[in-house]
């Protein structure tokens, strides 16, 4: 079985690429009554044109930039809402702070997006990039 899988991977490697499109997304997360659980709305669109992408299968996961691979947040399947290109999902994080939210998009369009959001008890906002250097992670000493 292993050989078959490796052969398939090798053949796929030689095949023509571009089985994925470039998408963009915006996240709007609101806190719920439970701590660290958020209801998120994802606005999925095409990267260049900004056209909303409907009918895709979206799953939402998250990882922490500082300890990748060790925080295994359960990916949640996002359900489409009435708005075109909008999906809703409920995610549960392990702690507050900056998370790299990973959107896996399948179906008619395929892509994988990583978005950095800062989560606290009020919700989520786009993270300001740039690592910290002082004892408190960011800004001045």
């Amino acid at each position, binding site marked *: 079985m292993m050989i078959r899988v490796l052969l398939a991977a090798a053949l796929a490697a030689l095949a023509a690429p571009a089985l994925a499109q470039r998408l963009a997304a915006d996240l709007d997360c609101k806190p719920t009554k439970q701590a660290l659980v958020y209801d998120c709305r994802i606005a999925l669109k095409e990267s260049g044109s900004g056209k909303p992408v409907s009918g895709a299968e979206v799953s939402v996961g998250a990882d922490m930039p500082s300890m990748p691979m060790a925080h295994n947040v359960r990916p949640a399947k996002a359900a489409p809402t009435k708005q075109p290109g909008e999906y809703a999902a409920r995610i549960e994080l392990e702690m507050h702070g900056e998370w790299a939210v990973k959107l896996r998009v399948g179906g008619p369009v395929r892509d994988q997006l990583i978005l950095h959001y800062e989560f606290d008890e009020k919700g989520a906002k786009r993270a300001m990039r740039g690592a*910290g250097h002082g004892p*408190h992670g960011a800004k001045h000493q």
Partner: protein
Amino acid sequence: MLVDLLQNTLDGLMLGSAYALLALGFTLIFGVLRRANLAYGPAIMLGAYAATWVHLQFHAGFLVLAAVTIAGAALAGAYVERLCFAPHARRGRGAGDAGAIASMVGSFALWMQLEEAATLWLPKHLYSFPPLYDGPPLALGPVTLRVEYLAMLAAAALACLGLRRMLARTRFGLAVRAVVDQADAARLAGINVPRVFMLVFAIASALGGLAGYLIVAAHEQVTPMLGMWSTLKGMIAMMLGGLGSLPGAVVGGLALGLIEAHTQWLFGPQYRDLIAYLILFALLATRPSGLWALFRRSDAPAQ
């Protein structure tokens, strides 16, 4: 231009005094137990978090907060000592020194544990902390000095002198020196070696707690990054100054502060860290006995 240089030097010394205090505690453990305590910073953080909680609940004054930080750090340190250092104290002191590795890894495990406990207790990413002195920084002509940092410098100097005095003049200090020289001989001479280790650990953690209080009061905020940051700075300063040497710890801390202040002014924060690490690396590769040993040839490098 000269004013900038002077201000940066002063800033560096003030920053370095924090590092020196941190390094003193770390060095005490390393110098006496010959083991590195990776849970040092997190124990300090737990003390600082305890003080933050007290501040949030009771709005206590600075003496209470300082006491809580020191006590919290000492308690956390005692926990670490009992679990990770006491059980391995007698294991092989030979070439492999399995005991040292086991203690270090154990302390790493407790580092993770204490950090998680702290963030579960107070989950926010930032808490404000009351400053030690609620006034403007002191102005000495064209340069400014901050009171907290002056307190740190004084504390570092006093702690270093106090420790040396204790080591040289008291019975306990004699016991400590005997243990450092030859733990087995000390044991045979009737010294309660485990008790000596425990007390040294407590003193070191309390020193760390004092450093922690002054640092968070100076920054007026507490964040979860404090743990790892404190351990790192303490370790780097200790290495710079020379492993296991108390005056070396102070020298190393001040040197680190000076390096950081000047390089940050000249090149920015990223280069500041880069150059500090580069200097540490170069020093380790060429003169592992540290800066202090460059001046005191009689002090053999602790190994």
